């Protein structure tokens, strides 16, 4: 059977991708942030998985306003990289996991999550920047990926309760897969940031750290946190953090905190990163 072996959460700041692509990791502005991911790069090498489910949001890169799926899942063989307006990032295409993703998508729909099915999808920085942070700059990515895009751009976004429940349903889906596969699940985006209006540049590090504590220790509290609180306390774009709840829901009741990192700023954003593993009884 399939097994979820770890959860990874991280911010997905586009400028981080540009810094990687331009080889700026050692520059004084960027070095402290990239150093915070050195542990993680080694950890994912030492704790490999067969498939990574990456929960992320598209940033008007593939999805326009014609269709705005609340929850979607890619079931394709591979995913090309978007041109987000600056030209395509010089990174490899992302290999899919069609058999497992088809199984999970079907399982979720039968479990009352009305997923939008994506047979074609190009992925943007929401998915690729976390991969660059965890895997560096390989010729070929060392994993297969199931993209799970969530609408966090347009209100109403899905509720925290729904996100946590989706994570739990993903756990059931993975565990009902016949083959033995090790799966990691990633929740990306956040932490506090606001990139619009006169309040742009908002950072709320104490709130971010409390969110991380609650995510680890008492995620059931977070599921009732209203979108309005994220928008006020963590900035209009901080609402991306609901995607971390999907990751957390898939890990079971108790988790081990393997690693935690915070850094301010990357571009306009408070960077946060966790590695969690399910705590076996």
């Amino acid at each position, binding site marked *: 059977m399939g097994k979820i072996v770890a959860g990874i959460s991280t911010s997905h700041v586009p400028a981080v991708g540009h810094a990687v692509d331009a080889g700026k990791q050692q520059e004084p502005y960027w070095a402290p942030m990239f150093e915070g991911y050195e542990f993680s790069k080694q950890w994912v090498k030492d704790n490999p998985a067969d498939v990574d489910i990456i929960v992320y949001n598209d940033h008007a890169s593939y999805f326009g306003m014609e269709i705005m799926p609340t929850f979607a899942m890619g079931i394709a063989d591979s995913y090309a990289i978007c041109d987000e307006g600056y030209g395509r990032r010089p990174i490899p295409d992302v290999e899919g996991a069609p058999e497992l993703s088809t199984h999970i998508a079907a399982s979720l729909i039968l479990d009352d999550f009305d997923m939008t099915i994506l047979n074609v999808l190009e992925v943007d920085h929401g998915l690729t920047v976390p991969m660059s942070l965890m895997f560096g700059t390989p010729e070929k990515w060392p994993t297969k990926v199931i993209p799970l895009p969530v609408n966090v751009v347009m*209100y109403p976004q899905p509720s925290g309760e729904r996100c946590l429940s989706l994570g739990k349903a993903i756990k059931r889906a993975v565990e009902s897969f016949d083959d033995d596969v090790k799966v990691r699940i990633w929740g990306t985006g956040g932490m506090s940031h606001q990139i619009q209006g006169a309040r742009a540049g908002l950072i709320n590090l104490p709130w971010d750290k409390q969110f991380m504590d609650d995510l680890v220790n008492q995620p059931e509290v977070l599921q009732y946190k209203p979108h309005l609180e994220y928008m006020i306390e963590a900035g209009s774009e901080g609402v991306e953090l609901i995607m971390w709840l999907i990751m957390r829901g898939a890990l079971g009741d108790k988790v081990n905190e393997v690693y935690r990192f915070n850094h301010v700023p990357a571009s306009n954003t408070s960077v946060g990163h966790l590695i969690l593993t399910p705590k076996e009884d």
Partner: protein
Amino acid sequence: MKPNFEPFSDIPGTTIFTIEKSREGFHLNQFCMSLRSEENRKRFLADGPAYLAEWPLTDEQKQAVIDRDFQKMLDLGGNVYFLSKIFASEGLSYVQAVSTMTDMNAEEYQAMMVAGGRNIEGWRSKKERGEA
């Protein structure tokens, strides 16, 4: 559940992109999506008004694009991730473009970010600030 968009209007200096705003901004945002191709970016930069004439934007939306008035574009239904295609086409970073919506220039804004970002104290509510 009955939707309630009203509380968002109390957040100072912030425009929440709601499903209602998305209708108002549909064509503005779709025009932005067209700038994901290099060919369209070149045409837009060569002659902005001519390129915009191909899209059913309101005159006010078109003028806001020509003026690169991002706050105005937000007010008229634009969303910042869509609008980013406009400044990306000119090679500007998020920090450079976002700072134009604040009362700081790009250097001052960047300095604020490096110093830890904008402190939330005083920025939670228009009512608290006496703006409502």
